[in-house]
């Protein structure tokens, strides 16, 4: 059996037909096969998910995984990476999961420049709980909890991540598969905190296919090492207005990373305790 054949297991897939999650799964599979060729053995990869439709992805991959809690993808991934810096840790999260329930963790992981990759399956609606607004839903969104239309405006998560200190910030779209694959791979390779906001449609509760198809374009990445350019790109679309939507790696920067390289040589615990007792006076 080739590596490609057994990367996806035989677990029954329960995503809706047309769901953007299939594209992310396909792209990740291709990226992991390439990474394996390039020297990252697959047993050193750990996938972590939150809870929501996106999270089923970890069940479908024949890879190490931790199917965690709604909003808690990042702290679990933080623990795994801090405990063993040799592991490549990839987080899958939904927009409700990541930008509502678990937003504080996202900000702090970006602040720490923790060397993990966060992939947000951003369909701008809660799917598994059958259609409520999320922090990235547009103004006026008519969901089950907001039947009169959403009075809030969405969060520009790209601006938020830049402000928080993320060293790799990108946006891509599930219907631009080569772009999706390239951006995901770059994000995983990036040494530091990398965030990819993946626009995708929810086939059942918020199908924006035509709307996105007309507006997305691949932006230039020639100034992606410059923060002020990244901020300008982030402001081109505020997740609400009817404007062009840039896709691409908006910001990529090198700065100190967590976990630091530490020499935690194993010490004789008993003699450490004896020494501490000697000083306990």
């Amino acid at each position, binding site marked *: 059996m080739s590596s490609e054949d057994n990367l996806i*297991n035989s*677990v029954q897939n329960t995503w809706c037909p047309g769901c953007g999650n299939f594209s992310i799964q396909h792209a990740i599979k291709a990226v992991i096969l390439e990474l394996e060729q390039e020297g990252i*053995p697959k*047993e*050193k990869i*750990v996938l*972590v998910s939150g*809870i929501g439709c996106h999270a*089923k992805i*970890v*069940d479908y991959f*024949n*890879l*190490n*995984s*931790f*199917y*965690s*809690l709604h909003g*808690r993808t990042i*702290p*679990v*991934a*933080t*623990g*795994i*990476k*801090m*405990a*063993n810096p*040799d*592991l490549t840790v990839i987080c899958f999260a939904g927009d409700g999961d990541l930008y509502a329930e678990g937003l*504080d*963790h996202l900000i*702090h992981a970006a602040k720490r420049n923790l060397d993990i990759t966060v992939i947000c399956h951003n369909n701008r609606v809660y799917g598994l709980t059958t259609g409520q607004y999320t922090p990235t839903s547009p103004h006026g969104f008519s969901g089950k909890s907001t039947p009169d239309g959403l009075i809030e405006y969405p969060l520009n998560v790209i601006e938020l991540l830049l402000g928080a200190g993320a060293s790799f910030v990108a946006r891509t779209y599930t219907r631009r598969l080569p772009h999706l694959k390239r951006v995901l791979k770059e994000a995983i390779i990036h040494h530091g905190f990398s965030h990819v906001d993946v626009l995708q449609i929810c086939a059942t509760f918020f199908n924006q296919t035509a709307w996105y198809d007309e507006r997305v374009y691949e932006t230039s990445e020639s100034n992606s090492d410059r923060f002020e350019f990244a901020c300008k790109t982030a402001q081109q679309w505020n997740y609400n207005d009817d404007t062009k939507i840039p896709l691409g790696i908006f910001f990529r920067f090198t700065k100190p990373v967590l976990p630091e390289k*530490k020499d*935690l*040589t*194993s*010490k004789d*615990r*008993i003699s*450490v*305790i*004896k*020494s*501490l*007792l*000697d000083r*306990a*006076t």
Partner: protein
Amino acid sequence: MEVKIITEYSVLIGGKAGDGISQAGQLIASLFSELGYHVYQYIDYPSLIRGGHNFCIIRAAEKPIMAYRDGIDVILALDQTTIDLHQKKLRPNGTIIYDKKRVKDTGHALDIGDIIEKYHGIRIMGNTAIISAFCGFMGISWDITEQVFRRKLQKKTDTNIQIAQEAYSQISKSMNIGPSVNGKHLPLLSGNEWISLGLLAGGIDAYIAYPMTPSSGILHYLASVAHEAGIEVIHPESEIAVILIALGFSYAGKKTAVGTSGGGFCLMTEGLSLAGMAEIPIIIVLSQRAGPSTGLPTYSSQSDLLFACHAGQGEFPRWIASPATSEEAYAFSAEAVRIAWKFQVPAFILSDKSFSEGIFTGEINPDETKESFQSSPSFPYRRYEDTPNGISPILAPPYVHETIKYNSYTHDYQGITTEDPEMTVTMVQKRIRKTEQLLKYVDKPGAVHLGGKESAKIALLCWGSPRGVCSEVAEELGLRVVSPVVISPFPTEEFRKAMTGVDKIILVEESSTGQLNLITAREGYKMDHVILRYDGRPFAVEELLDQVTRCIP
């Protein structure tokens, strides 16, 4: 009847928050432990940084003690409030040593400001002056005084010593305290530090916590020794992050403990339930303070017992122990690590403010540390393999050709989400078998402390820190003390043995409802009297003695 005379001393030092009363108390405790006494120190302080009244009671005795008494031999007053509040506790032949410029009283006056000025010291060195005067008064030799001061005061040591010498010479020797008959100089640590040493002995690789009184002492102590001990100590953004980061560490094979108090533990409960479902080892130190909500942040309580027993949605096994001595804190904290990894369950150390922040001597032997638990997985690996005892071997990534899948959903053997009714039942029953195994493992000698007059028909029932005061009361009144150390799963057989022959039970607990009562009622025991306290303060021996006396014929 032969009357056994116990030589013991109680000292109270009080002042304003910011006067360094806590450190001053430790210095006095160190002097007594240097002389070979068993020492117990209680710290009382409000939740503020400056102003307010802080005091410590330091008690030294020839036998192990874990409580304070009302009668104070010497009061050291750095402010007037100390006199106003505590003078009534002074024994008839007791003495007050005070700062002349800040306090009006009759006793031994010391012009602290003057002494500090003479040696160009700073205000905080007033502690040095008053403690040194105390040493002179007690007849503690200058050699020992200087030795302890040099060891404990590592900043501006020479100025401190000059100030100490001046204060020492200004007071006349009125007592003659000698070395304790034990003659053994025992280590002196806070409850939080004894717990920390136990966690280290159990083999933790990491400690993760968000600051919260009264658990922060563990965070501070382990952070200060992290390099030396070779552990990671992390302070993340919230208690929610704390427990989930810890579960990530466990996934990667690293033994990890967390610590908090009630409010922080509320935030940890979703992670606790995840540990229950995904069968992830985790050690939780829960140090109680008076609630509900923010409550009394710096005062003690035992009102989170049932919360700890039942926290988290769903049903899953957990181990809870509540140590009452330094030796138990060390042994059971180490045991918590072994239990968590052997049974892949949450293991709790249930402490409280009195125990965590109290400072006391103890005697442990690190060479007796047990080996840590080793898992032996079979291949191809399945994380939730069904086994007769319900325990699936644990394996950490990376492992070539194997996938290691943890899951918060109901899952199959491999760790894949399932909603199949049969697999659901299989996994529920697997957790039930783990609970049964755990009970079998814990219900053994040591799980329930039996003390006092062991054959007495009247038993004082208690758990955790009040055992110290209960033991002294029981000794004076000839009562039995029964105190479960392991609380979940409840050691039924050991408890029954300890209660054999008891016909009257008096429960002592720092709560308003007597929570242990609900646990022992399940075992078929009914309390005859319940003595509760919920003002955040522990009982002094005399206070409890008075209440217990009223319950017995």
